[in-house]
């Protein structure tokens, strides 16, 4: 089992007094600590215009800063938006290769197509075509990395033969992923030999169903790259505290703040009827059944959502064991939302997780 931390870089209003700078620098401090205590990957999203919810519009810069101040944690684009109005595919390949070089081969490249009208409309992108453009990106980027010179005649872009430079450090190329929000996207990932980077939290039963089909399909895949990435990652929230009541209070606040900020975005399906987006929202935090206090921690009056890494270390170990039993390879955690948890408590949560939880899942154990 691998563990990651996942950044939306949410910023509460009012956007003044250096709050954006604080969020960025606090996050970099968390990443340095996560590197020290044994987390495997730091992921950063690419979002545009998503007031409060995510101010992470240039993740390649943020991740470069993370890579330059850490030693071993891998850096994950979680994910690059593969819509040509936002990112030209050649630029995606170039920037990713540079980040792989600067991080000494620690890049993971996630790919996505955006789910909000807020973003697609802002770039005047056509929601009907994003699935097709994403497909063209993921089929061409590995070739740009691995072929000495590359040319392409496509639908969303074409280019005469050129050397796309530099080339990444990792051989044959960095692992590639697809963010999975809508049900069915995990099958698109499997068919192309790409990792499934879950960014929608869901209960155990739904994740188990999706995982089973992903594992079956990827055995038959026609990989778009030179290597198959058959890992499945799921998204979770982390707040670890020795005081389980405090853990429940702040952990549930984390889920609530995140969900509220998320729900105020204008999702593509709401603004623009299209068969290309089958799901209204992109995330349903804490969507699972809430366990009764008796189930969660007998004798204590706390209420914790199913499957979420919220609680004391023992409870979190128990939750992750359940994810492990489903066959999930990596759990990525959101640590804060709209600054609802003070930085010192976030850092303490990371320390506790590193000290008491990660060792239980190390390769040796």
């Amino acid at each position, binding site marked *: 089992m691998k563990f990651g931390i996942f950044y939306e870089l949410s910023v509460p209003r009012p956007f003044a007094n250096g709050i954006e700078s604080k969020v960025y620098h606090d996050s970099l401090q968390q990443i340095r600590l996560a590197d020290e205590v044994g987390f495997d990957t730091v992921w950063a999203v690419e979002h545009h215009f998503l007031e409060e919810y995510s101010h992470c519009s240039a993740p390649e810069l943020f991740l470069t800063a993370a890579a330059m101040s850490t030693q071993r944690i891998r850096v994950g684009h979680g994910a690059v938006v593969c819509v040509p109005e936002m990112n030209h595919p050649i630029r995606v390949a170039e920037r990713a290769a540079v980040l792989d070089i600067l991080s000494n081969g620690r890049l993971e490249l996630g790919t996505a197509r955006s789910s909000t*009208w807020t973003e697609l409309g802002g770039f005047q992108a056509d929601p009907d075509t994003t699935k097709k453009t994403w497909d063209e990106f993921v089929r061409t980027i590995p070739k740009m990395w691995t072929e000495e010179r590359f040319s392409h005649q496509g639908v969303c872009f074409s280019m005469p033969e050129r050397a796309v430079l530099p080339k990444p450090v990792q051989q044959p190329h960095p692992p590639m992923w697809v963010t999975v929000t809508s049900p069915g996207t995990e099958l698109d990932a499997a068919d192309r030999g790409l990792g499934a980077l879950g960014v929608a939290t869901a209960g155990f039963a739904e994740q188990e169903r999706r995982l089973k089909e992903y594992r079956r399909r990827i055995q038959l895949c026609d990989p778009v790259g030179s290597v198959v990435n058959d890992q499945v990652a799921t998204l979770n929230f982390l707040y670890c505290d020795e005081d389980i009541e405090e853990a429940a209070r702040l952990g549930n606040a984390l889920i609530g703040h995140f969900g509220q900020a998320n*729900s*105020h975005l204008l999702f593509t399906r*709401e603004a623009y*009827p299209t068969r290309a987006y089958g799901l209204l929202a992109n995330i349903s935090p804490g969507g699972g059944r809430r366990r009764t206090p008796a189930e969660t921690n007998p004798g204590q009056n706390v209420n914790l959502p199913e499957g979420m890494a919220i609680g004391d270390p023992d409870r979190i170990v128990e939750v992750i064991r359940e994810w492990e039993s489903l066959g999930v390879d990596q759990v990525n955690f959101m640590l804060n939302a709209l600054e609802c948890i003070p930085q010192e408590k976030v850092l303490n949560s990371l320390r506790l997780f590193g000290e008491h939880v990660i060792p239980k899942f190390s390769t040796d154990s």
Partner: protein
Amino acid sequence: MLTGNSPLEQLVPNLPTIASWEVDPVVLEGVEMLQAQFEVAARNIERFLPPALHPTIPPLGQWSCWDVPDSPWGPFRLAQFRLSCRSGARPRAFLLGSMIDNEDAQKNLSSKWGLTATHADIEFLRNYDAAEFQVAAADQLAIDVKLRNPESLAISDLQLFASMHGANTPSGLRLVQFDPTYEVHRTERYLPTIDHFNANAWHREGIEPVYAVTAWGAHSTIHLPNIRFVCRPDIDAFRGTESVQDA
């Protein structure tokens, strides 16, 4: 978090009164629906919503028109202007204005569902290649919407959401959740233009459509249901939502 900041009484000066929650359900057959969706200027958009509701980012104006060929009150056309919003985390649209061309339907929609509407002349046209509606009230053109380039959609591609409007109710002054059931038989998407929009005619000075998103049309059977939920207008929906059954 952006939150509405105008009292409901100020937003809806002539609040309708729902005397009883008990109404006989009404089924409207063969309704042609058109709706144009435009982003609206976002500055101070909170002033168009009560404190229970939150604007979306960006705010989306929805201009719709129903052409109802028959009803218990005779045929009528109903034009509505709504603003996209959130009630808690749920997608909703807040009714900013409504106009209707049938006095009997006007009275019944107001007294039974709290849907207040002013009298207007409404033109509605749907052809194979285009559609349009125009609304005029008190000798003023209120809106002129043209829809072009229809593309057929699967019925499941269209998702319709409940709207919220203000009313005096048996529970007191409330936001009423209006969520008809739509049986959609045909739907298509259009490119919209708004050739004329008179915010004053809707008593919504300061709000303007600024960027066309899309438009859709549908042929539907609409079931007007009993009201199920209301919400206190002055506090957030997590605390203020009430089931009518509990009232």
